[in-house]
């Protein structure tokens, strides 16, 4: 009875289509309508400009701590592009481009970072979940939503995001395990941005890749260049179609980089070199996609200038709307239970008395369901 090596089932594919120095694999290049390509670029640019605006707002004390997404615009956008409205976009907190594509109002994003729960209220036309702070805890409900979709046989798909640090959490493992045991329509995207605040990717796991964890769950995985939106579009389409057709979950590891700080509360210079950041700036998804579209004659400096001006105006409007918002100091009591308990009713009165009785608040207006 000899010792033998057991073959490991499962497949990990790596997809790169548009390299950072402009090389294009025309055989793999997705065939999207020109209008869609231009629209995707606009969302990418919008995300970058909104992100910069939020940093400024934070520096001026007009919003709270802010977690930028600079450098990670391509992956959530490429995934969201292939989702239907009735599908589920289940983010962590660095998926701004996907939120925007799904139709979340810009001022609502600012409201979240500005300290208002209303920033978590989901637009009625989509089935999304809000920003999720406890790392990877969303993987569990993503698996549950996808399980529910399977039981309902409604053909919807769930796309869930977490980071490289998130894969160290028990919730990532439990969620992936449930999703694969019950073979639910989940596409799990790990945005491997190399850093979990100050802890580098190699300190999170001894695995050579994050993607290979899929093999242990009995499913296939893909590694994509997460800064190459064309590669993301191709991988996401395959995984989403597979999930929709009953093929079960896929794990996508998107290799990317957090070009900015974790949040405005930390200084990346303390834990990573400027040379490393520079090397990733050369792989920035935004100029890469812009140059590709310029070569296709879908963009030029004039079109881009008009686009930037439009976006700037939209951002001005959104900031103004955000700053007009007046929160209801008593709303904290209103969403604890379907029916307010007598104790909470007493505490609400207590706060009213503490605030001087009558502060005439503006009601929260984005309440989506009665």
């Amino acid at each position: 009875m000899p010792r033998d090596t057991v073959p490991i089932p499962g497949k990990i594919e790596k997809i790169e289509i548009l390299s950072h120095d402009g090389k294009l694999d025309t055989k793999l290049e997705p065939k999207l309508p020109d209008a869609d390509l231009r629209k995707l670029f606009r969302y990418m640019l919008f995300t970058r400009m909104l992100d910069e605006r939020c940093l400024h707002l934070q520096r001026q004390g007009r919003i709270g701590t802010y977690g930028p997404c600079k450098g990670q615009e391509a992956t959530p956008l490429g995934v969201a592009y292939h989702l239907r409205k009735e599908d589920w976009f289940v983010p962590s907190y660095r998926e701004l481009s996907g939120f925007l594509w799904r139709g979340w109002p810009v001022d609502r994003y600012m409201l979240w970072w500005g300290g208002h729960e209303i920033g978590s209220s989901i637009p009625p036309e989509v089935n999304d979940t809000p920003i999720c702070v406890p790392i990877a805890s969303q993987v569990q409900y993503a698996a549950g939503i996808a399980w529910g979709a399977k039981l309902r046989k409604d053909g919807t798909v769930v796309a869930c995001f977490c980071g490289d640090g998130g894969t160290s959490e028990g919730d990532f493992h439990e969620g992936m395990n449930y999703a694969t045991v019950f073979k639910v329509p989940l596409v799990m995207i790990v945005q491997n941005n190399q850093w979990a605040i100050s802890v580098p990717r190699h300190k999170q796991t001894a695995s050579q890749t994050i993607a290979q964890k899929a093999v242990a769950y009995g499913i296939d995985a893909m590694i994509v260049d997460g800064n190459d939106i064309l590669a993301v579009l191709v991988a996401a389409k395959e995984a989403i179609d597979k999930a929709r057709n009953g093929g079960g979950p896929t794990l996508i590891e998107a290799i990317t980089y957090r070009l900015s700080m974790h949040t405005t509360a930390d200084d990346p210079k303390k834990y990573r070199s400027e040379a490393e950041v520079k090397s990733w700036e050369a792989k920035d998804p935004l100029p890469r996609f812009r140059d590709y579209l310029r070569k296709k004659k879908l963009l030029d400096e004039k079109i881009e200038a008009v686009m930037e001006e439009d976006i700037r105006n939209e951002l001005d409007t959104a900031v103004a709307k955000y700053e007009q918002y007046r929160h209801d100091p008593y709303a904290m009591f209103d969403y604890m239970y379907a029916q307010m308990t007598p104790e909470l009713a007493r505490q609400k009165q207590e706060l009213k008395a503490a605030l001087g009785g009558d502060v005439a608040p503006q009601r929260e207006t984005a309440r989506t369901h009665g």
Partner: protein
Amino acid sequence: MTDVALLVDVGLSFRDDLGIGGPARLDRKQAMAQLTMVKALNLALTEVMRENPNVMMMGQDVGIDEGVFRVTEGLLKEFGEDRVVDTPLAEAGIVGSAVGLCMKGFLPVCEMQFDGFSYQAFHQVEGHVRRLRNRTRGRFTCPMVIRMPYGGGIRAIEHHSEAPEATYAHLAGLKVVLPSGPRNARALLRAAILDPDPVVVLEPKAIYRAFREEVPDAPETMPIGKGVIARPGKDVTIITYAAMVRTVLEAAEELAEEHGVDAEVVDLLSVAPIDNDLINASVRKTGRAVVVHESYRHCGVGGEIVARIVEDSLMYLEAPIKRVTGYDTIIPFFANEQNWLPSSAKVVSAALETVRF
């Protein structure tokens, strides 16, 4: 994580035909309506699952094994494996995936196999279950039930005899109920499943099969947050819940027979919300109060009850309030657990102290 050998042992030793511990074990040939708490809980689950196809039962060994205490007996056979689900062995996975199922309109009933293991789902309960309504401003809600065998007294091994009610009661957004007998167990579990908010149902395992009680044919519910007077009296109010209701009733009999003290026993049934009005009305009548629960004293529910009496009824008090609780230690292994748990004798002595003050 669970020791399989132990579960088999506990499961078997708690079969109906073996009975356990209770003085009121009745002849099995009696009318169907005479049910143990386990059977009454099973009846509630069966009834609600028949009425509403969105109700799901999920947990470890709840399917083919019918639950380690047999609470889910017959459910897999009747409702199939899409609705009665043997999950992988991961408590946070059970609760976390149930949050997602809620977002798809299901009404999951999650079984934690034992109280001590529910802590392994705690971050999902705190981070999502209790917050979902507030976090999404009412767009999504979490009408799930998390039910678990609760408390000590069955000579179980480590981690199987915990009393976590204060921990859950502390988390706004949850409701926490603790039945004290078969009839209210059935009514409270039904109310919990139908409730639009997440409810933790703590089922006192010491009385799972300790006695039977008449349970009416038609389904019943009880309002969550309301207690009952389990025994009217005029000299001292003893406030308690769960398995301790029987201990306290026993103490009340002794107080009456041997000391001429007429104790009123309040069975809270729910510790979140808590029946403030009932507690204070009774204490205002008797002027004396003893609080009894098996969980830890420090930051326990008893402290909350005392605070409410002091806030609302201080001027009615004739004596300091006493607490009879588990001690602020790890609950001892079973050889010594009876010394840790409140006993009828401890309750009698506390009640006499307040009466003789």
